[in-house]
């Protein structure tokens, strides 16, 4: 038996603790979300019914099962607020991801052009904001975008506008916030792919007479598609369910699904509808999530 195989056996045992933890605290909770999404609101503690009580005997358990219904999902499908919220979440996520790609690509591309020494520095500079607090970074933008904030002061001083522009509680503020917060997630996978590319390929295309834009579209961009895919998924999936950024920066007249879920849960105390909203969100994200899983696995386990 090879040393590698002998090493593998205890390594497999290392899986036990994380396996149990993730099943208990990640997988099992989805079962509760599903169950409560099929329940009704009740003025009780916990605020839903039926409550399954395994001690109450078979009859009570059967009655509890019979009381489950898909009413909450019917509500979600028929109420405009929810339908709009899902459509809006997807629209915002698609738009923001496109913006992120447009802004992140030139930055990642520029990084690969730096001397190797400086590439490492640039990479650290891109990663550091990811370590600083999400909430603080959004708050920093509220400072800048508010009515008499820095942005309006600069615009007024430059005579670009005659009176302060309303930035806060608009979609533009929200997009600025999203792009700002997710930019590192777009740049890093793009940079990782672009940095691995052989510069010889681009040079060959250019030596054969291709103009710059053609070199980019026919050589560079197609070769960077794996990075594009990773960056897009890494941004798109969490943005669909985003709560903090739209809540603090966008107006309250049109909500994203994360916000409606939050409202149902914390303001209306309607746990069953909040759970149903979470289930629908999960279903919407299922395909991108599976794609992301495959990508992540290929990336981390290609050694095998």
């Amino acid at each position, binding site marked *: 038996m090879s040393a590698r195989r002998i090493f593998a056996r205890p390594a497999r045992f290392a899986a036990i603790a994380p396996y149990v933890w993730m099943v208990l605290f990640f997988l099992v909770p989805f079962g509760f979300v599903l169950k409560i999404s099929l329940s009704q609101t009740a003025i009780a503690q916990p605020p839903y019914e039926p409550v399954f009580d395994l001690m109450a005997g078979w009859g009570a358990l059967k009655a509890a099962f019979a009381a489950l219904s898909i009413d909450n999902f019917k509500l979600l499908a028929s109420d405009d607020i929810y339908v709009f919220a899902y459509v809006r979440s997807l629209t915002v996520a698609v738009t923001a991801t496109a913006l992120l790609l447009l802004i992140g690509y030139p930055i990642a591309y520029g990084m690969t052009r730096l001397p190797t020494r400086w590439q490492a520095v640039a990479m650290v500079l891109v990663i550091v904001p990811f370590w600083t607090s999400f909430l603080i970074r959004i708050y920093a933008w509220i400072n800048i975008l508010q009515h008499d904030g820095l942005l309006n002061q600069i615009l007024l001083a430059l005579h670009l506008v005659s009176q302060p522009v309303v930035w806060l509680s608009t979609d533009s503020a929200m997009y600025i916030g999203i792009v700002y917060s997710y930019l*590192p997630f777009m740049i890093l996978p793009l940079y990782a792919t672009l940095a691995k590319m052989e510069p010889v390929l681009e040079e060959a295309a250019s030596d054969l007479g291709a103009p710059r834009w053609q070199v980019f579209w026919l050589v560079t961009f197609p070769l960077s598609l794996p990075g594009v895919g990773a960056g897009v998924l890494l941004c798109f999936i969490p943005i669909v369910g985003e709560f903090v950024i739209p809540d603090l920066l966008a107006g309250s007249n049109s909500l994203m699904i994360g916000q409606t879920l939050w409202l149902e849960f914390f303001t209306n105390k309607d746990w069953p509808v909040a759970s149903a909203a979470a289930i629908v969100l999960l279903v919407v994200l299922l395909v991108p999530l599976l794609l992301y899983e495959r990508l992540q696995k290929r990336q*981390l386990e290609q050694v095998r």
Partner: protein
Amino acid sequence: MRKISRLSRFNIASLALGLAFLYLPILILVIYSFNASRLVTVWGGWSLRWYHEFFNDRAMIEAAWMSLRVAVSSATIATLIGTLAALALSRGERFRGRTLFSGMLYAPLVMPEVITGLSLLLLFVALNAERGFWTVTIAHATLTMCFVAVVVQSRLGSLDRSLEEAAMDLGCDPVQAFVAVTLPLIAPAIVAGWMLAFTLSLDDLVIASFTTGPGSATLPIRIYSEVRLGVKPEINAICTLVIALIAVVIIIASLASKLSSSRGESAAPL
């Protein structure tokens, strides 16, 4: 000939603008935290007034203390279990339920926080657990161990496995080989993983809001409820302190990885 791979003006401009975009807002926030004026937008000279205000704000201090405790405990749990998960994934070869295992570890990285938070809360309610410090800690550990696992796994993947095999050929059993060879080599990744878990926990608003109980708000929860009421200079001061703390953490993490990599090099000739 080499004109393509040269740094063009467009490259420089996009890099400079990109980095300015990433850093200017934070810089402005830090500068305004030293503003003497009550109006956030008017510059009234340098002052530490808002820091005084923060240190006299009992509720904020309590929330900050709660956040620190949660961050340290959840990061420690996450690092222990996340490292085990990384080890199983990168050295365990095939085992039963491997696909489900890696799926459960990668999904939380992108899963919207509202879903993770809600599902954990419903679990805690069903278990009749008292909500507060421990529920938030468990929730944060669940999220951050996935980040630790990815960081450590990518380090394990780039290691030369013949080192472990050599140790075993020389008579180590697998556990000895792991402790003597693998562990020192992945130590920087483990330290970085802990630091990442710590800052993610310190930062989290959504999951903490779902899983905490009355009377045990974390710092982000307090900041969030203040921010909803508008910009307050005291918040600038708190945010600056958090940024300073995170900066210290990043510096320690990078020093730790430098130290261990240079030690690794000096150990190599042996």
